[in-house]
């Protein structure tokens, strides 16, 4: 039941503006915490701007999609959908400068596999990753908890795939005017593939996205389902809600259209480089601070741990921020 889900209660935002404001706040908060010594005027020479952060997140959403598509064994769609939700939720309240999206991306997919009961071992999972697999599995297992916490343990995701099936069955039984509703499938898949790359999943309910996908598919086939929606699906009782729904469908379809615009590759490379410099070394597995802390945790000694924490604080106040200048 979507209306009584954590998704509906905690992760549905009112508008794109609200989302962008939250992300800007996240960006500002990060810079305030880590850029105390950077003059206000130059802060964006070193740190990513909110727009650059969004571009980075978007870039890794594309990677997420491709990673899931190429995953072996083949991954059910709801795993991919759930991973997208996790990824987007994570970066509403976290800066890409604090946690690098390449690490969060794979962690989201890994967590989604478990929650959606797509059983793959960590070994199987990282065999889909190029490069140092042992390091990758360490990163994933270390980030798993962080991710859960940042999702506030709201792990159950309602994806649009089930509502799509429901609507197709309904069309087959109650909408005789459309012959062979199965023809809608390619158009539906096309829209749903793209909808995950937009903020629509944080703004609209799964069934609204499902309906948008079906109407998109119908219009591609030059079929018209308007009377099915207004008369059959909504009927007299639902009249009052029709306006809102039409608005939602329109909103989803226009967001999907915008998703086709791909960012400039050279620009992306520059932002990647900028991020490499300004990312928080505390959470960078390649940094010295991180390695020391991991070692301390392995030793599991209060003293060592506190020592590192103290020296971290010193570092925070000195080198870390001075590097910026």
């Amino acid at each position, binding site marked *: 039941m979507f209306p*009584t*889900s*954590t998704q*509906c*209660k905690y992760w549905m935002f009112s508008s794109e503006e609200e989302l962008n404001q939250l992300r800007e706040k996240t960006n500002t908060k990060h810079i305030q915490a880590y850029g105390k010594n950077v003059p206000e005027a130059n802060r964006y020479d070193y740190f990513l701007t909110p727009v650059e952060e969004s571009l980075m997140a978007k870039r890794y959403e594309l990677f997420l999609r491709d990673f899931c598509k190429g995953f072996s064994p083949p991954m059910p769609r709801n795993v991919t959908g759930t991973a997208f939700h996790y990824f987007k939720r994570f970066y509403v309240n976290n800066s890409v400068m604090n946690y690098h999206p390449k690490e969060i991306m794979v962690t989201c997919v*890994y*967590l989604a596999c*478990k*929650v959606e*009961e797509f*059983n793959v*071992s*960590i*070994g199987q999972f990282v065999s889909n990753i190029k490069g140092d697999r042992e390091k990758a599995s360490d990163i*994933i*297992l*270390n980030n*798993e*908890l962080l991710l*859960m*916490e940042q999702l*506030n*343990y*709201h*792990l*159950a995701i309602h994806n649009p795939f089930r509502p799509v099936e429901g609507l197709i069955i309904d069309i087959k039984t109650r909408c005789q005017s459309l012959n062979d509703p199965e023809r809608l499938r390619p158009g539906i898949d096309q829209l749903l593939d793209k909808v995950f790359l937009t903020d629509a999943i944080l703004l609209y309910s799964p069934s609204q996205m499902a309906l948008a996908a079906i109407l998109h598919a119908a219009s591609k086939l030059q079929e018209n389902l308007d009377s099915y929606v207004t008369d059959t699906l909504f009927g007299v009782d639902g009249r009052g809600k029709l306006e809102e729904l039409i608005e939602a469908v329109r909103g989803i379809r226009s967001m999907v259209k915008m998703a086709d615009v791909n960012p400039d590759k050279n620009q992306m490379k520059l932002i990647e480089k900028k991020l490499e410099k300004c990312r928080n070394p505390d959470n960078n597995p390649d940094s010295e601070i991180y390695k020391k802390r991991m070692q301390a*945790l392995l030793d*599991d000694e*209060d003293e060592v*741990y506190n020592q590192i924490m103290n020296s971290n604080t010193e570092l925070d106040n000195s080198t870390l921020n001075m590097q910026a200048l």
Partner: protein
Amino acid sequence: MLNEITHTKSRHFAYRMELVKNSNNYEEMHIIGTGAYGMVYKARDKTSNKMVALKKVKVPLTDDGIPLNTLREIALLKQLDVHEHPNIVRLLDICHGQRLEKELIMFLVFEHLEYDLSMYLEKRSMRNFLEKEIRQMSKEILCGVEFLHSHRIIHRDLKPQNILVTTEGRIKLADFGLAKTYDFDMRLTKVVVTLWYRAPEVLLELSYATPVDIWSVGCIIAELYSLKPLFSGNSEVDQLNRIFRVLGKPLQSEWPKENMSIRYDSFEILDKVDLKDVVPNLSENGYNLIMSMLTFDPMKRNCAFKALQHDYFTEEPLNC
């Protein structure tokens, strides 16, 4: 000795707390419960200054990280809480402790209630409850159970200790939903789990489902009348003996066939008593309801939804 244990536990606890961002928000005060699967602490939420119940759950880690079952159960607990069901304890927060090599401590933060039903019963040991009070409590317990069952959750360990009572006398069920995270055999502490509310199929180690909770509720309603446990066995066999003494031994044909560790012939009931004698002042409807919840065959046992429609809940109170 107990102080010592408490002390070291708290120190251990405090240390873990330091490492965690948001469990810092809770100041642990003292242990309020030592369940089979972990400790429950009374704690103070530093932001709201309210009391909370902090349940510490030890999650075993595998090579694959946090077990799938735990993730799904946590997701479900969060999802359930959205309903804010009046007879289910609120889950306020979840936080985690340090991740160790083989385990992870998680803290489930629940609303704190001063009393549970066992304390409530103890307080009342002198004076019986009024019929209408029992009726109301039974109804609320069943409402909570019905809610859990409709969300495909089996409580598995319903007993007066984890049925909480608010100052207004409202019932709230606690301690459910992590059944797969900690199995019956995977106990965190050496506390002996009470058998008193266990259904026969659990005692016989057979497969079980939602009817196990109905059995427990049947035992608890009887206890609300008599103010003492209906079947207080001290071993599986003793527990079954006590059950059969009141309800009669099931027929040989009803005895489960699958790999039974306890044999049918091991029970010889000589001193049979009637439920009406064990639980006096029970109305006819009350008797029927309890008996419908205490059938040996789980398939024939009443369910929460139907039990709530029983005449018992609509008849005129007899002694109020």
